[in-house]
């Protein structure tokens, strides 16, 4: 039966489509379209009123033209007119046009909404469905405002037809996603949950999407759905393949609904009720058993539907992560799929195993498949499968197999597809660092990486190797020797030259004893690469040369000669020229002592999270880089990095800033930290008064100050974390200046849109503290979008003008899947951050103590201990406070005495502190005396909550 005879063939439309198809060229097509547009326009503008059929035909033609990719700027009104036609097909075309084109023409929205309203109240199910489809398709805020309260009513009304219920459920879901604030929970919510029991499978299928989304946002309110979902699932799983009639798909009963049910259960922890849990475990076991049964059909649809359920069940098992039995069975099942002849299944098995690898119960079981996975990496024809294999190797890597995996990945890199090389490089770099037991292996690996895939080695990777070499003195000699050898190659990658230049400049002396790598040989080797390099690398090499002059006085003449030649000292690049001139001058006038001080070896880098990880997170969704794995990496990375609590040594830092005339490649952002000490002059241009931006308006979100108190005695850590967002903080203070780095991590796989942050200082603080908000564009351009799994950084420069007690507020707004998130946090900027420790003798202390004897200068509190009273813990806290902890001052050795000066711009406030613990009573007495009474009070308040 020819299909179109069923439809209401619009002859004119068919002719037009044929004409377009017969056009021989794009020009001919455009000409034909313009002719048609002119025709339609004249019809619409004509005096003669068009009948419904013609209107429908022309609107449909316009729609066709639009879908071909041409702009349409008229016809909307005619389409809206069609909506109120009482002929179904006219109405239908009108709605289709609106659904496809409406967001470009929203001034008609009122008219459209009116038509929708009429259809919704028409009680004609077909019309109601059309209207609901339209709302779901457009899903605009205006529509949500108009219908968000109406649709739940339709959904749960007793007399609503099933098909309308289905449309209403999904329509409501759409509105909830765009405007969650407009969809109010109410009496209908409990009735929605019970749709899981509905007799009509179609209704359950539609409703469960809505329920899943609502449960994710309001888990407690929808808790009852767990047991309902389990019993529904159990009925489906145990039904015979024919029981469900048309809901059986290629002998698989209700595969879509089963997957949805399993997905819904993943919004919750395992059921607490033993009976429910037993029933669920039974279901999961049945699903796993069915995978072993012979297929009921040879059709791929059968196995796809069956395996879809199986994979969803495995996801649930992984989500629960509490049934070792099921986990291992899941792992074995996936292991079978790894060798399946269906590419799709191999792909999915590799993908699911990545998540299994992070569970402690199944990590070992996953590892047994290492050979198969390596083989997949080598032999799969399809690059997407190879990529999954690489992801899995990364996920299953641990100390026991790191060397093997890294070696395999390196050898794969030689032939890897261009599209995935950069990511592979990052992964190798991370694994090498994370599992390095000996650092020579680490250095070898990274240099190999540069050799094999130099173009794909991003700055983060080679910065990191330098950072690690500088922090580990046991590897420096080896590194120098290895880069020296690597540079011997006739053609070596520019990144190798960078690493080589940096490392020889710092540690060339460690291999200078060998005549084969004498200073001059080293220099000549480096300089032979110079002319092939880009400007930033040359700049770095010039810095290496001046360091050579310091390390090896015998090279001075040669290097000065090089610096003096026209191609350096008159180089057209201003940076190179300046370096050449300055270094030449420095080397000629400075005494060896001065030179040695200025060009001293780089101090160890402060411990920080590997920037490579951040980069990988940004590149990949969290799917591939499992989060616990990353956390682990951070920890171990730190360990390798020198470990311990080595705060940034600011004195050394400023010295190094002078000494290493910041290699134009800004190593790990050290340069951006420099102005800290460099002082207010340069800060001036960066300072932006927050008040002009944020205004004093009170943020609407409730202020979250949970994290705040934890930061009184420390500067780094996680300030805030929920399911979507993690905010980490690093801060440094010097005198009355501070700098705070805020790290916003998107924990979801969905991007945050319209991401904005504002910092405001409430009340009295406004006149006191200037928080300076600046986005660090150099290292990470902060866009209003934070991609899923990515982290962005924001820098806050803080200047304390005078003492204060209210903390600044950070307000964060963003859209997550259409829902506006609003968050206010107290930033942990407290007055004690601006302490300078003051050492003094017992005599001085008591003299000062007596001087501060006016009653208002003293603040005292007696309070119960909330934390451990352990001496070391207390000492650490008092030191973290920023004051000097004075020994042998207080006659009672149990007591603690501290002294410090708070630096504000206007004045200095001297503070003395005495803390008297009483172990027996688990009490403290805290006394503060400060030269300014408000400071005593505030400090006392803050500290009383710390011990």
């Amino acid at each position, binding site marked *: 039966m020819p299909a*179109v005879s069923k439809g209401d063939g619009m002859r004119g439309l068919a002719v037009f*489509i044929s004409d377009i198809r017969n056009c021989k060229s794009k020009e001919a097509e455009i000409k034909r379209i313009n002719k048609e547009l002119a025709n339609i326009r004249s019809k619409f503008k004509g005096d003669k009123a068009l009948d419904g059929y013609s209107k429908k035909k022309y609107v449909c033609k316009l729609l066709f033209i639009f879908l071909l990719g041409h702009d349409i700027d008229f016809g909307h009104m005619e389409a809206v007119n069609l909506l109120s036609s009482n002929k179904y097909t006219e109405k239908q075309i009108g709605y*289709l046009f609106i659904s496809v084109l409406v967001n470009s023409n929203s001034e008609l929205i009122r008219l459209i909404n009116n038509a929708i309203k009429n259809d919704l109240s028409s009680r004609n199910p*077909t019309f109601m469905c059309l209207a609901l489809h339209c709302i779901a398709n457009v899903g605009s805020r205006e529509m949500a405002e108009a219908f968000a309260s109406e649709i739940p009513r339709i959904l749960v009304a007793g007399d609503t037809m099933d098909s309308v219920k289905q449309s209403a459920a999904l329509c409501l879901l759409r509105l909830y996603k765009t405007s969650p604030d407009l969809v109010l929970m109410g009496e209908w919510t409990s009735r929605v949950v019970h749709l899981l029991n509905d007799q009509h499978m179609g209704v359950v299928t539609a409703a469960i999407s809505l329920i899943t989304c609502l449960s994710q946002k309001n888990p407690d309110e929808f808790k009852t759905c767990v047991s309902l979902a389990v019993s529904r699932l159990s009925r489906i799983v145990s039904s015979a393949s024919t029981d469900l009639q048309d809901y059986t798909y290629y002998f698989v009963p209700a595969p879509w609904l089963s997957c949805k049910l399993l997905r819904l259960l993943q919004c919750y922890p395992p059921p607490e009720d033993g009976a429910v849990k037993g029933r669920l475990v039974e279901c999961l076991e049945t699903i796993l058993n069915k995978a072993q049964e012979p297929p009921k059909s040879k059709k791929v649809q059968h196995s796809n539907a069956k395996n879809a359920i199986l994979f969803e069940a495995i996801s649930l098992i992984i989500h629960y992560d509490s049934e070792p039995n099921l986990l291992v069975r899941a792992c074995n099942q996936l292991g079978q799929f790894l060798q399946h002849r269906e590419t799709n299944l191999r792909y999915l098995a590799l993908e699911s195993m990545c998540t299994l690898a992070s569970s402690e119960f199944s990590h070992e079981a996953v590892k047994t498949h290492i050979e198969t996975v390596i083989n997949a990496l080598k032999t799969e024809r*399809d690059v997407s499968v190879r990529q999954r294999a690489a992801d899995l190797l990364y996920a299953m890597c641990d100390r026991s197999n790191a060397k093997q995996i890294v070696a395999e990945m390196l050898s794969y890199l030689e032939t890897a597809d261009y599209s995935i090389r950069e990511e592979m490089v990052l992964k190798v770099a991370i694994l090498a660092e994370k599992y390095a037991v000996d650092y020579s292996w680490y250095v070898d690996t990274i240099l190999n990486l540069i050799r094999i895939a130099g173009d794909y080695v991003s700055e983060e990777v080679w910065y990191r190797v330098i950072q690690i070499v500088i922090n580990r003195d046991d590897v420096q000699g080896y590194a120098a020797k290895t880069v020296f050898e690597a540079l011997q190659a006739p053609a070596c990658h520019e990144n190798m030259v960078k690493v080589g230049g940096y490392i020889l400049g710092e540690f060339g002396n460690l291999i200078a004893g060998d005549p084969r790598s004498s200073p001059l040989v080293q220099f000549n080797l480096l300089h032979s690469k110079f002319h092939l390099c880009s400007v930033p690398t040359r700049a770095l090499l010039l810095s290496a040369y001046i360091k050579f002059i310091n390390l090896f006085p015998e090279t001075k003449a040669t290097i000065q000669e090089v610096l003096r030649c026209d191609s350096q000292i008159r180089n057209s690049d201003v940076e190179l020229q300046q370096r050449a001139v300055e270094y030449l001058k420095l080397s000629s006038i400075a005494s060896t002592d001065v030179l040695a001080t200025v060009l001293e070896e780089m101090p160890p880098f402060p411990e920080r999270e590997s920037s490579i990880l951040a980069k990988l997170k940004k590149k990949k969704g969290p799917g591939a880089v499992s989060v616990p794995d990353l956390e682990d990496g951070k920890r171990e990375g730190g360990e390798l990095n020198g470990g311990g609590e080595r705060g940034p040594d600011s004195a050394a830092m400023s010295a190094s800033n002078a000494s290493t005339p910041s290699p134009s490649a800004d190593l790990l952002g050290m340069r951006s930290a420099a102005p800290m000490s460099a002082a207010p002059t340069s800060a001036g241009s960066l300072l932006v008064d927050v008040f002009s931006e944020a205004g004093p308006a009170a943020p609407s979100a409730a202020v979250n100050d949970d994290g705040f108190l934890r930061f009184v005695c420390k500067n780094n850590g996680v300030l805030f974390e929920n399911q979507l967002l993690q905010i980490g903080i690093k801060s440094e203070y010097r005198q009355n200046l501070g700098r705070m780095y805020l790290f916003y991590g998107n924990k979801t796989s969905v991007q945050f849109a319209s991401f904005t942050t504002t910092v405001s200082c409430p009340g009295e603080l406004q006149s006191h503290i200037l928080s300076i908000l600046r986005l660090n564009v150099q290292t990470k351009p902060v866009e209003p979008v934070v991609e899923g799994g990515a982290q962005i950084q924001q820098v806050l420069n803080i200047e304390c003008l005078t003492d204060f007690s209210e903390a600044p507020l950070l307000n964060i707004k963003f859209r997550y899947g259409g829902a506006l998130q609003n968050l206010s946090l107290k930033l942990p900027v407290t007055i004690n951050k601006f302490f300078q420790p003051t050492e003094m003798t017992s005599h001085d202390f008591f003299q000062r103590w007596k001087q501060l004897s006016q009653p208002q200068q003293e603040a005292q509190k007696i309070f119960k201990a909330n934390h451990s009273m352990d001496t070391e813990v207390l000492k650490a806290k008092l030191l973290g406070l920023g004051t000097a902890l004075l020994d042998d001052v207080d006659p009672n050795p149990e007591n603690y005495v501290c002294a410090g000066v708070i630096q504000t711009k206007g004045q200095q406030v001297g503070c003395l502190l005495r803390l008297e613990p009483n172990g027996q009573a688990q009490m403290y007495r805290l006394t503060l005396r400060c030269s300014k009474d408000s400071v005593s009070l505030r400090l006392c308040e803050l500290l009383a909550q710390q011990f």
Partner: protein
Amino acid sequence: MMRFLLLFSRQGKLRLQKWFTPMSEREKKKIIRDMTTMVLARQPRSCNFLHWKDLKVIYKRYASLYFCLAIENQENELIALEVIHRYVELLDKYFGNVCELDIIFNFEKAYFILDEFLIGGEIQETSKQMVNRSIEASDMLQEVRCAGTHSHTQHETWLASVV
């Protein structure tokens, strides 16, 4: 949820586009370009899944047409593949041996059928009978009946024949 569904020919000609979240015309054009180049470049007998930005792209070829469905990251690929197949079956049932030309000449019907099957990127009804019943019912509501404007030529391959 599903984010969008595209149908395009082997030559990269777009035959149907359905967007389940609001998007600017510019974004749409970029996605269409990305999808067609990416999918058309795939070797035969590769797997049907791709990662694209934070989405999973599921595609399958039926005769001369590619069906390309983007889903969110935590969604199930295999079941999405069967969403495509079920849609092809629905088209086939309605048109009777559906081919690319049916979709070109009756694009509005292809949209209507899709609306009965999926709403807002979620499945509304999986039963073939139920979907067809609603489509047939709406066809019944029509007043004008015209003769067909084209019939299949032998050059057109039926989509479902490769099913």
